[in-house]
């Protein structure tokens, strides 16, 4: 049971405040979990803004160095990867998917350039035909083809399609781990499911482990194998996704779960009206 990725008491803090009020903001405190190399899974980190989930993603990708603890990918300390050669080797196995597809693709660069560059660098392909073939193969995985992408710019396609192209690009070096930070929050609801279902096929058909980072409990419940809930840098609860999200044991995760509005008017209205009563009660009690 070799570890694909191991976080060992990882922490990250930032200096904040002026000369006189120097203090440390703890973005991530004592985070530990392990992803199994021979059991691909969708591991989800759930949390609201400021919970430290994005900082965690950046540390796993090696874009930020933890201030405490260590992150090992296939036994190698990610923060120690310095040389260009080692970085490339690491990036061949660990690829990111970004939140806003319109920000992730340079509006002045054609989309196919990203696919070709990945194929050229990580697969060492040289001839144009080989490179285009690799790009087309990756696009097939996500239900697209090179014809739809060649020479196009990001503003010509929808958020959902761009995100699928981003997944295709990440698949080219056949990575072991994909770190997706809020991959669907900028995608329309009607297209969101195509991306989320895609993660499942990547796990099952290509054996890729996916770290899925989101604030949306419903998609987390629908797609994840395991989940950890973070709040202001702390891990509140962790475990099997259905168990933890189905009926959480900690107060914060229960509040989070109860705030999720079900797509059914009767139930949703009841949640809002209950909150309204609590608001009015608090006012009258404060008022008297």
């Amino acid at each position, binding site marked *: 049971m070799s570890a694909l990725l191991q976080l060992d008491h990882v922490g990250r803090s930032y200096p904040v405040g002026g000369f006189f009020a120097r203090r440390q903001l703890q973005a991530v405190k004592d985070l530990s979990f392990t992803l199994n190399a021979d059991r691909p899974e969708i591991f989800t980190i759930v949390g609201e803004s400021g919970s430290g989930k994005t900082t965690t993603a950046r540390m796993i990708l090696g874009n930020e160095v933890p201030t405490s603890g260590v992150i090992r990918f296939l036994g190698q300390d990610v923060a120690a990867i310095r040389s260009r050669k080692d970085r490339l080797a690491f990036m061949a196995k660990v690829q*990111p998917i*970004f939140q*806003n597809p319109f920000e992730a693709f340079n*509006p002045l*660069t054609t989309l196919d350039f990203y696919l070709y*560059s*990945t194929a*050229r*660098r990580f697969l060492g392909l040289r001839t144009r035909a080989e490179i285009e073939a690799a790009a087309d193969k990756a696009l097939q995985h996500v239900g697209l083809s090179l014809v739809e992408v060649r020479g196009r710019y990001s503003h010509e396609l929808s958020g959902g399609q761009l995100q699928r192209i981003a997944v295709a*690009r990440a698949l080219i070096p056949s990575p072991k781990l994909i770190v997706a930070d809020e991959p669907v929050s900028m995608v329309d609801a009607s297209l969101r499911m195509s991306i989320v279902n895609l993660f499942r096929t990547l796990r099952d058909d290509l054996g890729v482990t996916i770290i899925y980072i989101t604030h949306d409990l419903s998609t987390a419940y629908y797609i994840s194998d395991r989940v950890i809930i973070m709040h202001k840098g702390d891990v509140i609860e962790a475990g099997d996704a259905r168990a933890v999200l189905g009926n959480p044991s900690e107060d914060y995760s229960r509040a989070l779960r109860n705030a999720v509005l079900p797509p059914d008017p009767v139930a949703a209205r009841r949640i809002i009206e209950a909150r309204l009563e609590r608001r009015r009660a608090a006012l009258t009690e404060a008022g008297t």
Partner: protein
Amino acid sequence: MFSILRDLLRFNVEFLIGFLLTGTIFLFAAAHFFAPYPDTAIYLLPPDMPPSAEFWLGTTSRGQDVFWQISGAIWNTMTFGLTVMILSRIVALAVGMVSGYLGGKADEVLMTINDTLIALPNIPILLLVYFVMRDQMTWPLLALTAALLGWNYDARLIRSVTLSLRNREFTRHAVFAGMSVPQVLIRQHLPYVMPVVFFTAMNNLIWAIGLEVTLSVLGFSDVNRPTVGGMIYWANQHQAAVSGIWWWLVFPIVAVVLLFLGLFLLAISINEYIDPRSRLSRMGG
């Protein structure tokens, strides 16, 4: 490249006027290579002749043809301006990109020095350099000094652009797509850095030309080398305004003012055209 020129000429009136003005003055200046008399020769022609068929713009009290004097003067003034512009762009780009991309301590140190230099009065320092160097002062040295005093405002603008580019998601995406640093800089970032570099370059060129005119008008430069400022300097020395040789003063002033206007119009119109936002809207973004 020509399609851009055609678009600009057709749709942007500022560019049209600017292009025509700068173009004619540039040709006028380039003509000095075919001048019948050497630039520095004096007392060749009958002095103080008003504009006539023979001497289109008249002659000076020092027996020089005003027309060819201005042509040579504009050429020298522009070469001075271009030298200052290029040298200061190199420093501004270097400082702007290093502090923008590296960030952290390097950024803090460079920007502190940058802000310090901005607060220094340029002309007194330049005058001090001239005073100290006296006759050793050659125009390339003056150009170097002006360049070293003229880059800091622009370095801060370039830094703000590079800093924002470094933190944009498509930069990280490019790195993970295997693009090398030069590829990212040239292919991904250049279209965003170009407008600010170009616009500050044109402003610097205008500032440098103004500086050259100002210094040589006071006689603080190699006055034997014909420059626009030099002409006005000699016109003042010979009391041209008082003794009614108006053409000696008016034509160089008109020429340099037209040059300023032309360059300025070019700067505004081209900057608006290559700005990524307007380029995107043309692509239908």
